[in-house]
């Protein structure tokens, strides 16, 4: 079956857009083909800086013919109906229609319509221009003379040529005839911009890819990446270094070249006095070059060598000397800037920068950065004893933690924020924990980020996140749907992970209340509503995040509801532990049966309570027990209640669950032998109250009614 080759040749496409564009092109063309009834065998798309290419192979040469029977009017029906039928079906006279017998409702006409399938090449000529015109570039533009006309083509950068051929492997393929604006599809493309700029005539994908390779264009981005990585590693290895791998950078540089040529350059070793992260950021962000480390250091960024690896787009006639020299000069200038920034930063103590924060607005309703830092400081000091941190150190760390935002290096490379704070803190002789907190208080940044363990870091990290959450809650900027511009979900998850992994005991309500207190003291009342409900709203948000986290870990998130429904639960660590113990219990036979028994009791109660329009609470009367099973259950409930409550009070949730397990045999026996709806209304009432006692007893550990089966 025939194949399609499509190439869209343009001016340089941004590297970051290429992969998605190739994928979009494949998806759009193949979706359309399938929608047209053309099922293909395979498709693959490619991108280089100057072209998007697509091959679809094994497409039928024609669409299948369509046969359709259409039911018409009754035989002998009104003339208007028959004329309408002829018009709709394209028949010239009613004699051409079949007559379908129907003894019940009367005979009627049926037209057999045959719609011949179209040649695929014609279908392609219709769909391809539409796809090009509606291509979903993140940003697109107009250009040239035609841009003055309404409806002119939009593309990511000016589009110069379209190649579109369709045909069998064994034959000369045909050009798919269409045009977009003034561009006619053909079979002419171009090689490498500098090394082989001449036009190339191509027939089908195989010769297209081969001819491009001859014309110094590696079409497949994966091949370019492989080549760059292999060559870069080898080049580094040959000189006794190791490439510091960087997938994002590799993706980007492979989108900047059609013919990758890997070269190595060096910089002055004096620059190695700059922190290696800053060297790497400078070389990577500004110059899109890789750094290398001294072999065997085993440390990714520990011991950088004074070398870098660049990826050029040409095989230069001087072997790359001028290119290396040029890049070295730029990198030298960049590193001397970075060194200058770093050394300038070192001259000012972090605390001397703080007054500038008074001018910087954090959020119009939440005040300046300076006010925010003051709040974090206060909260960190309050949290310090709870997390085992030294109050003075926590206060100091909170005070300094944001100061590096005002340094030159962080201004230039935002991604080293925090890290530079640590370096500058150490350089000015701060305590090691205080310095560490400058970096670590931003952590954990996501579900896979490391959670700090140093108590000082923990105190500041919690204070920072809780102030953020309480602040945005107070000004009603909560996350909604997919919108979470202040990353509040991440902050809440961060708090949960800090608490869980460090086994911290905190009352969320109290901490949130005191964070709100700080805010209210400082900010004018009209901006911040004194919302008594805020801490409990926030607690519910934490419960949500906890559920999401448990769900992502594959755990049962309904158990969170069962624990929260008890009320008064605002200690995240205890909630997590209780949920864990409950999960284990419910996995056991005893747990499953007790849950079933409790649910049964609840169901009976809710039916009877509805019927009788009353609640069966209060203690049952022991004098009314007549059956052994009743007495046994009542006794068991008494025991279990005491035992479970005591265990819960000791925060030994496993023991509480074991105590619960003892309820199971008497509950089972009760339902087995005892009829709740006794004829004696007094006995019935007493038995319903006993059922209620089961419900009450289980509430020592969780609200079983919230647990899903």
């Amino acid at each position, binding site marked *: 079956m025939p194949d399609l080759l499509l190439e869209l040749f343009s*001016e*340089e496409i*941004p*590297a*970051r857009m290429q992969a998605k564009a190739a994928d979009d092109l494949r998806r759009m063309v193949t979706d359309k083909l399938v929608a047209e009834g053309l099922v293909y065998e395979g498709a693959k798309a490619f991108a280089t*800086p100057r072209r998007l290419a697509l091959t679809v192979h094994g497409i039928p040469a024609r669409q299948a013919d369509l046969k359709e029977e259409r039911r018409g009017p009754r035989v002998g029906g009104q003339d208007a109906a028959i004329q309408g039928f002829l018009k709709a079906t394209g028949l010239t006279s009613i004699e051409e229609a079949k007559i379908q017998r129907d003894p019940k409702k009367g005979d009627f006409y049926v037209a057999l319509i045959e719609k011949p399938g179209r040649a695929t090449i014609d279908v392609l000529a219709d769909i391809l221009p539409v796809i090009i015109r509606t291509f979903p570039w993140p*940003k*697109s*533009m*107009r*250009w*040239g*003379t*035609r*841009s*003055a006309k309404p409806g002119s083509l939009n593309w*990511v*950068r*000016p589009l*110069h040529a379209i190649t579109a051929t369709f045909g069998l492997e064994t034959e000369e393929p045909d050009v798919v005839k269409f045009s977009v604006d003034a561009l006619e599809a053909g079979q002419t493309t171009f090689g490498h911009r*500098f090394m082989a700029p001449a036009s190339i005539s191509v027939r089908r994908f195989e010769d297209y890819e081969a001819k491009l390779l001859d014309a110094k264009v590696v079409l497949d981005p994966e091949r370019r990446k492989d080549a760059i990585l292999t060559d870069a590693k080898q080049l580094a290895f040959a000189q006794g270094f190791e490439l510091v791998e960087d997938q994002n950078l590799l993706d980007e540089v492979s989108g*900047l*070249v059609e013919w990758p040529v890997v070269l190595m350059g060096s910089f002055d070793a004096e620059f190695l006095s700059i922190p290696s992260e800053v060297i790497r950021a400078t070389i990577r962000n500004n*110059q*899109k*070059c890789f750094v290398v480390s001294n072999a065997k250091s085993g440390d990714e960024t520990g011991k950088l060598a004074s070398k870098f690896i*660049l990826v*050029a*787009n*040409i095989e*230069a*006639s*001087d072997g790359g000397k*001028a*290119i290396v*020299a*040029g*890049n070295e*000069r*730029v*990198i*030298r*200038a960049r590193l*001397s*800037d970075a060194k*200058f920034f770093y050394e300038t930063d070192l001259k000012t103590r972090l605390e001397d920068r703080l007054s500038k924060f008074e*001018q*910087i*607005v954090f959020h*119009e309703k939440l005040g300046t950065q300076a006010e925010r830092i003051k709040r974090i400081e206060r909260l960190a000091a309050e949290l310090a004893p709870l997390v085992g941190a030294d109050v003075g150190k926590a206060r100091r760390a909170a005070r300094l933690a944001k100061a590096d935002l005002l340094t030159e290096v962080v201004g230039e490379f935002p991604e080293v924020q925090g890290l530079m704070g640590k370096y500058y803190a150490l350089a000015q002789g701060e305590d090691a924990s205080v310095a560490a907190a400058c970096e670590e208080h931003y952590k954990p940044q996501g579900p896979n980020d490391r959670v700090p363990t140093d108590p000082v870091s923990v105190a500041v990290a919690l204070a920072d996140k809780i102030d953020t959450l309480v602040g945005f809650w107070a000004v009603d900027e909560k996350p909604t749907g997919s919108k979470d511009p202040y990353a509040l979900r991440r902050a809440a998850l961060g708090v949960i992970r800090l608490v869980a992994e460090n086994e911290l005991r905190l009352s969320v309500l109290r901490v949130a209340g005191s964070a709100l207190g700080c805010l209210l003291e400082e900010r004018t009342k009209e901006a911040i509503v004194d919302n008594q409900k805020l801490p409990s709203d926030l607690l519910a948000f934490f419960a949500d995040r906890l559920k999401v986290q448990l769900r992502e870990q594959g755990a049962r998130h309904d158990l969170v509801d069962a624990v929260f429904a008890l009320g008064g639960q605002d200690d995240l660590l205890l909630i997590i532990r209780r949920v864990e113990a409950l999960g284990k219990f419910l996995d056991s036979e005893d747990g499953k049966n007790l849950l079933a028994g409790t649910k049964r009791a609840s169901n009976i109660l809710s039916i009877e309570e509805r019927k009788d329009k009353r609640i069966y609470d209060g203690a049952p009367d022991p004098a009314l027990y007549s059956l052994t099973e009743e007495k046994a259950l009542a006794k068991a409930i008494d025991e279990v209640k005491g035992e479970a409550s005591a265990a819960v009070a000791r925060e030994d949730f496993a023991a509480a669950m074991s105590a619960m397990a003892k309820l199971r045999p008497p509950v089972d026996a009760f339902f087995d032998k005892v009829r709740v709806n006794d004829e004696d209304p007094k006995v019935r009432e007493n038995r319903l109250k006993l059922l209620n006692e089961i419900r009450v007893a289980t509430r020592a550990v969780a609200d079983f009614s919230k647990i899903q089966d």
Partner: protein
Amino acid sequence: MDSLPAHMRPDRSFQGLILALQRYWADYGCVILQPYDMEVGAGTFHPATTLRALGPRPWNAAYVQPSRRPKDGRYGENPNRLQHYYQFQVILKPSPPDIQDLYLKSLAAIGIDAAVHDIRFVEDDWESPTLGAWGLGWECWCDGMEVSQFTYFQQVAGVECSPVSGELTYGLERLAMYVQGVDRVYDLNFNGRDGDRRVTYGDVFLQAEQEYSRHNFEYADTAMLFEQFRMAEEACKKYLAAGWKEGGNSRQHLMALPAYDQCIKASHVFNLLDARGVISVTERQSYILRVRELAKACGDAWIHTEAGGAL
């Protein structure tokens, strides 16, 4: 280039580089203009770009524009940051289909050989919040150094470009440092001569960088500048209002250019105030918006003039 006397060669002389670019674009058919006689932050502010980019009339021009970025002053101590520098600006309307090749040939004209140097077009979308303008294009890299900006204007002064212009901006000092092989801007050979007759960029501009850095960061009279901003804004609005003329069924504007001068003025005064650090973060946005409103109103006025295509 080989026929040039040594002191005129772009790789030896800063002015030689400028002259070579001017000659190249003159040969192409551009009108070679002189710098606009007002303080601007970039060559784009020259009315030959901002205003001429609007409307249907073809327009090809090239010129050097001294550009002032008060905040970039470094008292002459940084090897490549300057508060006053030169841009070479080319505007081609509509953007010709071979504009990338034209650009590459202009690099060849100043001695950058594409067989030896790695020239790249790296994504860089351009947006000027103060001008209400945006476009798509690239930074042009030569061996890892950004030597030009290349933009297809999509919108300028709030008006859709129809047709689209191609704008090329060469950072002349950087380019000269590159072709001369110099690491410190002040060491550039300005006139291409040797020995006693050699004049460096430092000879011409170092003192100015020191003085203006002092002025921009420490002494610029902020009370006067706030007042100047207000006056420029008012004047701009006044000229715009006075310039409208209703004739038949078309509106015409008779003072777009003088009004736009006041917009440029306001923009530069704002940059000075910003460098002095007297504009807070929140105010900053509102000043930018005020300049943008002026720019947009000027753009609207311009397209109702003859060169804006109204007649």
